[in-house]
């Protein structure tokens, strides 16, 4: 293989549903939490004079799923744009492994191990699944000028990587247009896993999905988390967020309106909070208080 960008050693095949999420040690976790893989400190992004994000801070850690919730226009997409290198913050810092970095392009973000699954699930629909999977990093064999794609290996790896995130029985040679929305998202997640990303940013697609398709997406989110990735999951749905999230970042008007953990809220509170709009901050505070008093 002549590509410089090699995948990590092949993972142990372990479906995510074999391992209930709560088996993870939570009590005997060291008191000082591990350093975040990716951190935002006071990040502000302005479009003209309007801040799309205002002093947003957040930390993403290994094996943790952070869900970002908020209404349309609350800054979710801008946050994704900052993390994926599409947008540069006007103020604030972005730290990878504690070191400040500037991400000037999606390519640089990927070089830092940040993989993004875009909202529009951008794939080339008329190309086969394996061609999409390896786009930009195709395995080859032979010497130039006879260097050619290693089709057999590419198909095999694609099938295996897709099975790892829960898409089984896939014909890697079929056109990617045959994939449903959830499977397309799984394709992007599988790609991130295979190429050794450490941070996975998922902007939930706007395309309508069936419950089964959504379940597939959540399953691949868990597969990514269990492989030790830090996951940022941007979603509209508090129900689905609560299924997989360890932490919940509520955005409202470009500001962090709430930063909660699993212990702070149950799914009903979370739903109310997301629907709450203006009262988000106040509710969050009162909830925190109640939680501490308990």
């Amino acid at each position, binding site marked *: 293989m002549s590509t410089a960008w090699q995948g990590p050693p092949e993972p142990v095949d372990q479906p995510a549903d074999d391992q209930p999420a709560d088996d993870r040690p939570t009590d005997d976790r060291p008191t000082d939490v591990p350093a975040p893989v990716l951190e935002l400190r006071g990040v502000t992004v302005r479009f003209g004079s309007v801040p799309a994000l205002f002093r947003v801070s957040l930390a993403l850690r290994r094996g943790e799923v952070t869900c970002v919730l908020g209404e349309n226009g609350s800054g979710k997409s801008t946050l994704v744009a900052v993390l994926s290198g599409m947008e540069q913050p006007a103020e604030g810092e972005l730290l990878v492994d504690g070191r400040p970095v500037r991400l000037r392009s999606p390519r640089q973000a990927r070089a830092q191990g940040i993989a993004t699954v875009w909202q529009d699930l951008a794939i080339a629909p008329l190309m086969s699944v394996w061609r999409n999977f*390896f786009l930009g990093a195709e395995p080859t064999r032979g010497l130039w000028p006879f260097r050619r*794609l290693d089709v057999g290996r590419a198909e095999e790896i694609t099938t295996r990587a897709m099975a790892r995130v829960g898409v089984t029985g896939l014909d890697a040679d079929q056109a990617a247009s*045959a994939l449903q929305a959830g499977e397309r998202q799984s394709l992007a997640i599988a790609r991130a896993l295979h190429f050794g990303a450490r941070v996975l940013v998922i902007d939930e697609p706007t395309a309508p999905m069936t419950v089964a398709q959504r379940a597939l997406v959540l399953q691949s989110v868990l597969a990514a988390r269990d492989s030790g990735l830090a996951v940022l999951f941007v979603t509209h749905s508090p129900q689905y967020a609560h299924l997989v999230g360890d932490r919940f970042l509520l955005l409202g008007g470009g500001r962090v309106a709430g930063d909660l953990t699993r212990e702070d809220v149950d799914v009903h509170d979370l739903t109310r909070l997301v629907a709450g709009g203006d009262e988000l901050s106040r509710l969050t505070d009162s909830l925190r208080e109640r939680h501490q008093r308990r």
Partner: protein
Amino acid sequence: MTPDRSLAFGPPAPVAPRSRGRRAFDRLLARPGVSALVGVALLTVFFGVQSPDLISSAGLAAVLEVAAPLGIGGVAVALLLVAGQFDLSIGVVAVSSSLLTALLVTELGLGLWPALLLSLVAALLVGAVNGLLVVSTGLPSFLVTLATFLILSGAAQAVAAAVADAPRVGGLRGEPGWDSAHALFGSTAQLGDGRFPVSVLWWIAATGVTTWLLWRTRFGNAVFASGGAPRPARELGVPVGRTTVLLFLGTAAAGWLIGTLGLARLGAVQVTPALGTEIEFIVVAVIGGCLLTGGYGSTVGASLGALLYAVSREGITLSGYDPRWFEAFLGALLLVALLVNGVVRRRLRAVPRS
């Protein structure tokens, strides 16, 4: 443990597998160019019944002679169409590069080979300008290459009139290097009653090499992605800009080759204004199954399209119809091809939900 958390992802729903034959059929349909192949077969039978001359070796040679230059251009244009771009300037590059070669030989007294090399460089420069303009400005390549076409077309006629005082520049026979250049680009082989031009071999080679490039190399994958999904391709690190410029260099080189083949065959170049020929390459590629929207197509298909074009042109002439009907016939063929492409595309997009 929250009940929500114990998410039970059951086994995937059972999938009704499609039958083997059905799948093979879908795959066959998914191959661009299958419809062109069917078209070639149908037309050969149709015209062959009316005028058996078409199927003789002489008829075949005549068909291939028409198809070869068209196929070479069609193959290059097909690659560009797959990458989501357009090139109208290929025909005029053919004419003006061969004019340049002829003028360099007759006016400056250069040998044929240095002249060919210089005109190749000039053609590649035109391609580079086209490609870089398209990539850097983001303008539609249709308009950029239309501008190049007009500039080159006008300049070629003006230069031919000013320097050679005629729209025809000839007298290359016997110049130094003519014999070897003629052998490589202009020779013919007698097989039966037909004189088969060497351009057929160039055409086959071009089709073979580009097919391999398109389906079996990283470059080919980049071509598909540049046309099918440019934004994600860029995000994933596919060199979309470089690929596009290389493809414009490819069409320019193809134009030069077409021009050189004609020059070596006739020993002269005829400079006549013809917008129609510019469209032919694109027509041929589309008949061969390329989508104008990019991301899909094949160079074998484009070659079959060229064959279809040639068979119908020769067929109409040999069958005794008024040759002026040919253009109308070509238009009808194009329409059929567009409709078939649309059907194939819908089928591709709506492949089985498995």
